[in-house]
C-alpha cells in the first residue's frame, strides 16, 4: 500500500485584515513575514510533517511552488539541507502552475510505487503577489504544506489518481511580470475550473468504480467561496458529503499548496476508513481518491492547519504589508555594507548554516555552536561529532533590540539563545512582540531568509517565540 505516512502544514503568524486593503472587505489573509518565502515556509511545513520521523530514511524531496526565489537554482536542495536529510536522495522542483503541488504528490506516489524510493517528502508553498487593487491582492494568502509519501505505516492510502491537462490563459504570470495576470474570471471559471476539475474527478471515480456517495469529504481548490459548491453539486455530491472549508476568510487562497493544506485540514478530522476526494486546479487538474487507515490516529501530533490557524497575530497596516513584499521603495542607507557575498563559504558552511549543526566534543561532551575543531573547554582537536540544533528549542540568555538599522522590522531583536540540552548561539529573533521579549523566554528555531544580495538569498535560522 502506498500513500501519505505523515502530514504537516505552515501558515505564517501574521494575518492582514482585508479592511486594510479596501474598506468593507471581509476577513483576513495569512501573510508571510518579510523574512519568509516559499523555501522557508516549505521548511516549516516539512519540519511539522517530520515530527517524530527518522530523517535519515527519506529518499527524496519534491518542492512545488509558483513563487520560487530562483528561476535557475533548485529549491528542493535547500529544503533538504535545512531539514538535515541525506545527500543521496532525489530532489526536484515542480513549478509554474498551481497544480504543481499535486503533480509533485502524484510523482512521489509513482516513485514509491515503482520502488525507486521508499519515502519521498513533498512540500508545496506559495507567496503570490496580486497587483495593488486587484482581487488577487485581496484573496491570495501565504502558506505551505508537506506530505510524506511511503509504503509502510500508511495513514492515508492513495487509491487512484487522474489528471487533466488544459492549455489556457486564465491565470498566469510571465517571466518578467511581478504580478499575477488573469483573463475575465467568468471565462476561466466556466471553461477552465469547472470543466477541468469535473473531468479529472469523473475520471478518477470511473477508475475506482466509486460514486460520490462513497466519500466522506471533498477537498478541492477554491478560486472563490461559491465555485466549489457549484462544482460538488455538478459532480453529484449531495449535502451528506462534507465540503472542506476553504478558509478564504481566515487564510486566503494560498495557491500551489492550497489543495494540500485543505487536505491536511481534512485529515485532521478524518476517521479510519473514510474516503476523501482531492482535486487541484491550474492548467488542468489532478484528482485523487484517498482512504484514511487506522494509522491516521498515530500522526495527530502536528501543528497542521488547526493549530496554525488559531495561532495568529492580526495587523491592519497596509504599508507594512507592502514593505514586507518589497513593493515600496525604501531608502537604501545608512545600512551596513555586508561586503560581497561569496559562494564558496555558503557551500562550505551549509551544515553549520542551513542544517544548523553544532559540534559535541567527544572528550568532554561540550556542545558548541558554531562547530569548533578545537574544543573550547578541553582543547581536544578534531574530536567532535556534529549535532543538529534546529529542533532543540531553548531560552533567551540575553538580548538587545536595534531601533535604528532597519525600516522593515523595527526593532531588530538580537538574542543569545541557550539550547535545551546545551549549546548557545547568537541570532536574530523574528515573529516577536518586542515588549514581550525577556531573558529566560522559551524560543524555538525558524528557518528564514536573512537577506538578498547579488542574486543570492542567504538563509539562516532565527529564534521565534514558541508558537502555540
Amino acid at each position, binding site marked *: 500500500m502506498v500513500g501519505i505516512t505523515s502530514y504537516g502544514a505552515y501558515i505564517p503568524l501574521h494575518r492582514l485584515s482585508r479592511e486594510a486593503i479596501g474598506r468593507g472587505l471581509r476577513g483576513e489573509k495569512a501573510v508571510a513575514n518579510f523574512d519568509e518565502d516559499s523555501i522557508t515556509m516549505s521548511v516549516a511545513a516539512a519540519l511539522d510533517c517530520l515530527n517524530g520521523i527518522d530523517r535519515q530514511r527519506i529518499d527524496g524531496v519534491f518542492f512545488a511552488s509558483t513563487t520560487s526565489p530562483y528561476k535557475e537554482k533548485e529549491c528542493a536542495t535547500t529544503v533538504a539541507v535545512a531539514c538535515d536529510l541525506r545527500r543521496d536522495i532525489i530532489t526536484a522542483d515542480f513549478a509554474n502552475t498551481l497544480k504543481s503541488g499535486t503533480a509533485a504528490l502524484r510523482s512521489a506516489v509513482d516513485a514509491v510505487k515503482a520502488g525507486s524510493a521508499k519515502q519521498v517528502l513533498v512540500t508545496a508553498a506559495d507567496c503570490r503577489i496580486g497587483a495593488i487593487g486587484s482581487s488577487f491582492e485581496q484573496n491570495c494568502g501565504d502558506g505551505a504544506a508537506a506530505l510524506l509519501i511511503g509504503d509502510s505505516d500508511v495513514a492515508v492510502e492513495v487509491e487512484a489518481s487522474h489528471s487533466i491537462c488544459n492549455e489556457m490563459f486564465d491565470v498566469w504570470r510571465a517571466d518578467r511580470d511581478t504580478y499575477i495576470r488573469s483573463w475575465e474570471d467568468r471565462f476561466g471559471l466556466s471553461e477552465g475550473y469547472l470543466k477541468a476539475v469535473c473531468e479529472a474527478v469523473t475520471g478518477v471515480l470511473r477508475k475506482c468504480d466509486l460514486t460520490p456517495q462513497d466519500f466522506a469529504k471533498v477537498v478541492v481548490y477554491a478560486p472563490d467561496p461559491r465555485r466549489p459548491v457549484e462544482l460538488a453539486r455538478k459532480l453529484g455530491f449531495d449535502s451528506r458529503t462534507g465540503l472542506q472549508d476553504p478558509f478564504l476568510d481566515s487564510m486566503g487562497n494560498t495557491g500551489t499548496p492550497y489543495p494540500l493544506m485543505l487536505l491536511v485540514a481534512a485529515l485532521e478530522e478524518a476517521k479510519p476508513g473514510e474516503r476523501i476526494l482531492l482535486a487541484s486546479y491550474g492548467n488542468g487538474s489532478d484528482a485523487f481518491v484517498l482512504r484514511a487507515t487506522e494509522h491516521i490516529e498515530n500522526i495527530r501530533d502536528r501543528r497542521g492547519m488547526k493549530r496554525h490557524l488559531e495561532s495568529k497575530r492580526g495587523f491592519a497596516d497596509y504599508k507594512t504589508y507592502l514593505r514586507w513584499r518589497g513593493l515600496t521603495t525604501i531608502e537604501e542607507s545608512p545600512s551596513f555594507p555586508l561586503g560581497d557575498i561569496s559562494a564558496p563559504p555558503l557551500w562550505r558552511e551549509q551544515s553549520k548554516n542551513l542544517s544548523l549543526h553544532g559540534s559535541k566534543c567527544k572528550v568532554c561532551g561540550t556542545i558548541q555552536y558554531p562547530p569548533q575543531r578545537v574544543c*573550547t573547554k578541553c582543547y581536544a582537536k578534531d574530536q567532535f561529532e556534529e549535532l543538529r540544533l534546529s529542533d532543540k528549542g531553548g531560552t533567551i540568555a540575553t538580548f538587545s*533590540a536595534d531601533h535604528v538599522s532597519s525600516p522593515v522590522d523595527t526593532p531588530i531583536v538580537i538574542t543569545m539563545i541557550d539550547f535545551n540540552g546545551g549549546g548557545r*548561539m547568537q541570532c536574530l529573533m523574528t515573529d516577536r512582540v518586542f515588549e514581550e521579549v525577556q531573558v529566560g523566554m522559551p524560543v524555538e528555531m525558524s528557518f528564514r531568509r536573512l537577506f538578498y544580495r547579488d542574486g543570492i538569498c542567504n538563509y539562516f535560522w532565527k529564534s521565534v517565540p514558541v508558537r502555540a
Partner: protein
Amino acid sequence: MQGIRDRVAIVGMGCTNFGEHWDKSPEDLMIDACYEAFEDAKIEPTDIQAAWFASWVSGWSGGRLANALKFQYIPITRVENFCSGGTDAFRNACYAVAAGIYDVVLACGVEKLKDHKGGFPLYIPAPFDSSKVEVDLMPVSHFALFATSYFRRYGLTPEEGKLTLAKIVVKNHHNGSISPKAHLQREVTVEQVLNAPVVSWPLGLFDCCGISDGAAAAIITRADIAKRFRDDYVLVKGLAQVSGAGQSQLHSDFDFTYFPENVAAAKIAYAEAGIKHPRNEIDIAILHDCFSSTELITYEDLGFSPRGRAKEDVDAGTFTLEGELPVNTDGGLKCFGHPISASGLRMIYEVYKQMQGKAGPRQLKKVDIGMIHNLGGVPGCFSVAVAVFGRRD
C-alpha cells in the same frame, strides 16, 4: 621574563581635533598628528627609525603612512586589532625599542570614519564569518546584550540601570565640554539622556560614543635616553593585550555581566606595573566607553568597583574630575569621539598631558600613575589592550 616596566618612555605626542573632518583626508590627519608629536619631542621626521601604523579601514599597509610623511625606506608595520588597534601599535613600537632594535620610533593611529556612509564601512563579524549569517548589526547591539544581562543580574530595573548609565554620560559630557579637541563639547542633563530615542535596547542615543575622524601619534624612545628629549617624559609601566577565543558564545555558563578579556588584560598589565590595588594606586583612567554600559562594567572589570557595585560609585561621583579616581577626563569616546584606530593613542595623549600638567581646566592635582584601556570586536572575540604609565621619578 623581564617585562616592559620603566624600559621605554614617551617623549612626544600629537592628536588632531576629533570630529567630522569632511575637508581632510586620512593623510591630512596623519600629518597633523605626527608633526605635532615631532614638534613636541623636538625631533625631525628623519629621526624616526621605524613606525607602527594603526588603521581599521582608513589605510592598508605601512605605505600609507610612509607616503603621507615621506619616510624614506624605513620599516612600517600596519596594525589592525579592531578598536584596540591604536594601543596595540603603541605596544609593538614599545617592544621594538625595549628589544634594543631601535632608539626612536613612531606609533600613529588614524581613522576616517566619516568618509563612509553610516560611519562603519565593514561588516563587523566579517573576520569571523565569511558566509555572512552572523548578526550583521551595529556594535551597539552587541554591547547592549551585556547591559540587559547586567541589569538583570544585579536587580536593576531598566529604568534604574539607564539612570546609572545617564550619570556616566553626563560626567563624560561635562569633561568633553572642557576638552578643546573633543568632538562633542556640550553639557547634557540626565533628563536629556533619559529622554533620547532608543538606539538598541536598553541603550539610547546618548549612551553611544561619537563616530569621528581623527589621528593621534606618539614618539617612543629608550627610558635611559629619554632625558635627551625632555625632562617631563612619561614612562611605560605595563602593557597588555588579550584576544578572546569565542568563550562568551561557546560557554553556556557565561552570563554577559562582564568582559573576561578586560579582566585578563588588566591582570597582566597590573602585574607588570606592580599595581596591587588599582583603585587606590591609579590616579587617572581613560577607558573604553564605546557605550555607557561598557564604562560601567569596565569599572568592575578593572577592579575599581566590586562586582555589582559600580552603581554605588557612580552615585558617589567617584569617577568625576573631582572624584577619588577620575575616569575619561577628556570626555572619553563618548565626547572626544571614536576614530577606531586613533582612540588608543588619544587616550595615551590625555594621560601624557595630565602627567605633564598641561590638561588645562581638566588638570588633576596628582597624576603619578595613569592607565588606558581599549576594547574592540564582538562578544567572545574582543581584543582588549591595557597600558599603565608613570611620571618619571
